[in-house]
């Protein structure tokens, strides 16, 4: 079957197609600017899913129960599965292969979400990731899914969002256990909240640029500041309701509107993570890079086996 390749006269023509709700497919003659921008966005998402799995894996052996261990394993498996799907979508765009993306990630030449440049230092951090970070990621991904103009990404996001919804509800259940638990558990979670609140808020990024092409091309459906504000309005009262303190001395609530206003956000920690200079960036990347190198013999052996099989089939 031959698939007709759609093309556009220029970027204005392409923009009209997007504005009319058009969905771009890999078989299209995709404008280079759109391809590069969307590829970078999906590669960043894929890297973040993989590095997020590595952030959570540290505490899986220490899970305080066998069923909990199964649950956190399944959750981490979901994250790596998302990375797997996203790398395939990104690779199909023809900019880099999956191996190139992974090798650049492990060389420290790629980026991933700020929150995965931090280390989970207690079990409560694992819960803070499940409660705060997964909720932020869920909100962000749902906003991308809403109007996403790139077909393969939208289809994969449908599955990712369904699974992230489970993760978020699991995070809520785990948080409730700590909130209703012993003083040791509550102190642990407050300390974790002190570490993870600002990175979670910063995950949405600084205010979107007025001419952000990802908004114009309907990869993003909401501006960063809109998503960030909705997150603050939801999670400040929830966390306070559970008896925890938001680590923001200047947090205020408008008496008329009831809206919460955080203190001015210091974006320097986020910028540092984008340079792979976050608190745990070096260890996180080095662990993955060392392991990638140590297991190269398996990939080499499979490549040799595949070439031998192809040669045999050709000879036959």
């Amino acid at each position, binding site marked *: 079957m031959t698939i007709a390749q759609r093309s556009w006269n220029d970027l204005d023509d392409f923009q009209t197609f997007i504005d009319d709700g058009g969905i771009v497919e890999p078989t299209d003659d995709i404008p280079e600017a759109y391809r590069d921008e969307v590829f970078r966005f999906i590669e960043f998402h894929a890297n973040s899913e993989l590095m997020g799995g590595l952030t959570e894996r540290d505490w899986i052996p220490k899970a305080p129960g*066998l069923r909990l261990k199964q649950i956190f394993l399944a959750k981490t*498996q979901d994250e790596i599965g998302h*990375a797997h799907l996203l*790398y395939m979508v990104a690779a199909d765009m023809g900019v880099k292969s999956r191996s190139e993306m992974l090798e650049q990630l492990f060389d420290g030449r790629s980026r991933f979400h700020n929150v995965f440049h931090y280390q989970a230092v207690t079990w409560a951090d694992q819960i803070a990731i499940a409660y705060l970070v997964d909720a932020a990621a869920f909100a962000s991904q749902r906003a991308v899914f809403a109007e996403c103009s790139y077909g393969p990404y939208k289809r994969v996001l449908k599955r990712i969002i369904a699974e992230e919804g489970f993760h978020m509800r699991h995070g809520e259940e785990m948080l409730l256990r700590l909130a209703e638990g012993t003083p040791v558990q509550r102190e642990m979670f407050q300390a974790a909240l002190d570490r993870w609140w600002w990175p979670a808020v910063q995950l949405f990024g600084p205010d979107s640029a007025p001419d952000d092409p990802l908004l114009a091309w309907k990869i993003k459906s909401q501006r960063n500041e809109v998503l960030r504000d909705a997150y603050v309005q939801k999670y400040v009262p929830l966390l306070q309701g559970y008896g925890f303190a938001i680590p923001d001395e200047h947090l205020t609530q408008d008496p008329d509107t009831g809206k919460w206003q955080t203190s001015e956000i210091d974006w320097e920690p986020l910028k540092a993570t984008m340079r792979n200079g976050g608190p745990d960036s070096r260890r996180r990347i080095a662990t993955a890079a060392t392991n990638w190198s140590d297991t190269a013999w*398996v990939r080499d052996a499979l490549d040799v086996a595949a070439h031998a099989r192809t040669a045999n089939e050709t000879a036959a």
Partner: protein
Amino acid sequence: MNEPSMDPPLAAVVLALADDEHMVGARHTAWIGLGPFLEEDLAFCSIAQDELGHAIALYEMLPAAQASGIDAFGLLREPSAYRSSWLAEWECTDWADSLVRQWLYDRAETLRWEWLREMSSPPLADLAARALSEESFHLAHAEHLLCRVMPSTEEAKRRLVASTSRFLGMSDNFWVDLDLGLRQQWEQLVAGDLARWGVEGTALLNTPQVAPADRSVRSPGFDAFHAELTEVVALDPSAIW
């Protein structure tokens, strides 16, 4: 879920199998996110979840675990009370070790589940039937990977044969008191696998034994592993996590 007809010898088999499943499942988790490629990460993660699920189901059938709760029983016993094997407990810092352990262990585990399916009554026999349906995937995973990797390059063969030798040196420890007439069958299956992958198995199967033929003796590294497994639960024994 008590097993009404579980006599002491059968309970000993169930405890050893449960502890093996627990330890091997917990050890497999060390590779999450660090496999040689993403598909392998996902496969190993599924196997680890299956093994932990088998451990939970088996613990639930043991009266001692029912009395204390499966998490307390699974995590907080004295090291000498565990009946897991060195093969299951071993820390695999090399992917070759981890893959070979998965193959050898699942070859043996399948035989044990088949024995339990035939020799016990419900609900243990039912659990065995369910577990066997999962084990077929575990064995397929090992077979499909090893049949391509083992004969492919000299380095792969050297690494995988060294790992095989290392773990076959723990066979006496694995089968002690739990042979059930299965060890010979296991060795034949292992030799058959190796032959298909281009490796002569006779010498490997006669590897000198390095582990004691006593499942009450823990492997080197167990204490550190046990401390890791119980780090959180020991923080506050009164807490519900």
